[in-house]
């Protein structure tokens, strides 16, 4: 479990992390979303005790990270891609950390196997592809068999096979009762992997909700209806808590009514329907809507 209480980090006059209070629960995969510069990595570094907070606290499994006597068994982290010495072999990299943390020798082979690196364990990391480097980073994070796993952009540079591996791994770690906290800017990946979302924008907490709720809140689900008598149907459906939009002639986007209701009413009125589709807002759209004011870097014109 990760508990952030009023966590704040200031660099000069810039607030990188601004009074963030959130609890990351064990047993579920928590996605950490936010545009570049939102403060995600800084937050993760503070959780690991690498950066000291300007104010507030970050507790991991009940204590500040640095107060754990066996930190690698408490938290395993992948903080940035390729934080590896190019001249060292994958095995030596893991062995040095295993020795430092007092872990049994077998752990090195276990995580090498788990990350599919057994065959290249004796090769120097300098020759690794980005994806292999990421796998070794994940292997490093899991070395101590930690109760809490923190992964910063783990799918970056991975091929589809690797992305699937991370997704399966994250879900399995959560199912084992561990706390899994991972960031990504790939919304689609988050939508299928994360149960819960923590969203940051410009250092502030924007949302701390379940993935389903996040999608709903952001304008959420609707029904796309195409009919030659769209205007008549729109009038028929109007009511409290129901919105009907028409972006193009003959097409309606209806919110607040189920597809069945729309179909039945249209049939009762004798209105022909050419399309009746339930649409779910993408995580991407939801994210854009929520963080519209919180993006630090943006282009002048947002794509439609």
């Amino acid at each position, binding site marked *: 479990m990760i508990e952030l209480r009023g966590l704040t980090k200031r660099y000069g006059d810039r607030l990188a992390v601004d009074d963030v209070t959130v609890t990351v629960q064990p047993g579920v995969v928590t996605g950490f979303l936010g545009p570049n510069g939102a403060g995600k990595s800084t937050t993760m*570094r503070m959780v*690991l*005790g*690498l*950066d*000291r907070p300007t104010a507030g606290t970050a507790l991991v499994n009940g204590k500040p*990270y*640095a107060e*754990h*006597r*066996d*930190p*690698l*068994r408490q*938290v395993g*982290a992948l*903080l*940035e891609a*390729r*934080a*590896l*010495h*190019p*001249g*060292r*072999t994958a095995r*030596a*990299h893991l*062995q*040095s*950390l*295993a*020795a*430092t*943390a*007092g*872990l*049994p020798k077998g*752990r090195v082979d*276990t995580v090498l196997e*788990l990350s599919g690196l057994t065959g290249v364990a004796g090769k120097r990391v300098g020759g690794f592809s980005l994806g292999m480097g990421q796998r070794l980073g994940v292997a*490093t994070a*899991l070395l101590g*068999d930690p109760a809490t796993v923190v992964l910063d952009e783990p799918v970056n540079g991975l091929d589809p096979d690797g992305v699937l591996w991370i997704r399966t791994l994250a879900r*399995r*770690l959560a199912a*084992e009762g561990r706390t899994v906290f991972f960031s990504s800017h790939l919304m689609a990946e988050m939508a299928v992997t994360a149960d819960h979302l923590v969203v940051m924008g410009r250092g502030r907490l924007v949302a701390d909700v379940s993935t389903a709720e996040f999608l709903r809140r952001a304008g959420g689900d609707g029904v796309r209806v195409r009919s030659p008598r769209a205007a008549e149907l729109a009038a028929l459906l109007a009511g409290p808590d129901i919105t009907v939009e028409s972006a193009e002639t003959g097409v309606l986007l209806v919110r607040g009514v189920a597809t069945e209701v729309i179909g039945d009413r249209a049939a009762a009125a004798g209105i022909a329907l050419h399309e009746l589709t339930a649409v779910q807002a993408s995580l991407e759209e939801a994210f854009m809507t929520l963080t519209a004011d919180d993006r630090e870097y943006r282009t002048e014109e947002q794509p439609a």
Partner: protein
Amino acid sequence: MTTTLETPTRPSTAGLLRGEWIKARSLRSTWYVLAGSLVGMVLLGLLFTSTAGDGGPGGNGGGPPSVDFAQPLTLALAGYNLAQLALGVLGVLLVTGEYTSGTIRSTFAATPRRWPVVAAKAAVLGGVVLVTSTVAALASYAVGSAVTDGMPGLGDDGVLRVVLGTALYLTAITLLGSALGWLLRSTAGAVATLFGLVFLLPILGNLLPADWGPDVVRWLPSSAGGSLLRLTTTADQFAPWTGFAVLVGYVAVGLGAAVWRLGTRDA
């Protein structure tokens, strides 16, 4: 991942030292530098001693006044100048390599209190370099003795102190490099600063006025530590062990400052 660790294990001092040893030995550059220093030192000593008296500096008494070129022992060990350069860079690299590669985050994640990492690195590095440079110094002396007639015996006054002192001096310079690496975190910056301290400042110091210049120069790390490598010291120089204590003091201050900075700075 479904298997949990059966035996509860804890980080320990021995484990930390073993971890740093694995880090040092798993880089080829460590072995290249150690082997290069050893071989280079012995070969240079052989060159200087075997050519002494053939019109070289040993024969005509030229060169800087601070070096006693007529003394075969000094000539046999003169390769330490090259070795201190290489070993000092090794000291820098084993630290800055963690920063340039980013492994420092894993290192501090495993040892959040940080100062034990500085101590363990210094201990491992110091141990490895002390062994290597002791072998190099003894080998240089042996090779020099074989090719010159005038070499004083190991039992003669101060000779063993000079030979083993060379190894102690090289170890201290290596740790000075390590301290600069922690403080500056940049390979180029730390190497340049180390060279400036060890090589440049003594040369510039010689340009100072004669009435107070030597009082400044003898406090420089390489000049103070270098007293240990002389059979006889002049009034301008520290006594051998006093001078070495001054050098050790610089190393202690450097490592202490590194520990303090690590405690206040984000990794």
